């Protein structure tokens, strides 16, 4: 997981509270992604960024927002957490320098919404 860190690694919160997960990279990669991983669903893309202040929605973006004000940081915000957002969240980075989108993943953030 060198070059990419996620924080917090574990969080327990209550329904209705806001939550922000942070992804920080030291690789200067252009692309950053947020995925969630749930049993029976594999990994699903929430949002991604292709540059500072350039973001787009993924497959499961409802209830989530993102921001990228610096190349190295990509924030995922749950404005009002729900129990269905209990999941493990992974950040990933890519430079697509080879013309192929190979991802490097962080260690994950486990979120429990009570």
């Amino acid at each position, binding site marked *: 997981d060198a070059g990419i860190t996620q924080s917090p690694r574990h969080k327990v919160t209550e329904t209705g509270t806001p939550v922000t997960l942070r992804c920080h990279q030291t690789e200067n990669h252009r692309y950053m*992604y947020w995925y969630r991983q749930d049993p029976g669903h594999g990994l699903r*893309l929430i949002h991604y960024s292709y540059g500072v202040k350039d973001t787009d929605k993924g497959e499961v973006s409802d209830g989530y927002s993102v921001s990228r004000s610096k190349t190295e940081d990509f924030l995922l915000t749950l404005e009002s957490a729900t129990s269905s957002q209990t999941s493990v969240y*992974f950040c*990933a980075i890519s430079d697509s320098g080879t013309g*192929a989108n190979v*991802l490097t993943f962080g*260690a994950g953030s486990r979120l429990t919404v009570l």
Partner: protein
Amino acid sequence: SQQGEEDPQALSIQEGENATMNCSYKTSINNLQWYRQNSGRGLVHLILIRSNEREKHSGRLRVTLDTSKKSSSLLITASRAADTASYFCATDAGSQGNLIFGKGTKLSVKP
């Protein structure tokens, strides 16, 4: 929507045996990738095969791609207990940001 679907969902073998996992997908792709995830960790990229390639090797890994059947297989030869992990295929159809993962095959290698 899932693009890749791995088969089997779970596989249990003895150390030294070969492990084969399959991935099927639905649409045309630019490349297909395999990732490994150890329990409680992030995914790690293993190998990428482009749509114009049929077979690729990396150490004990062998990947094949059949674009006519929209399928790929990952073979791990001479498995070790350390290979115990979940393995995911991911397809890249070229849409920015859209690397789509399957649900994974959970491999258990018993010493």
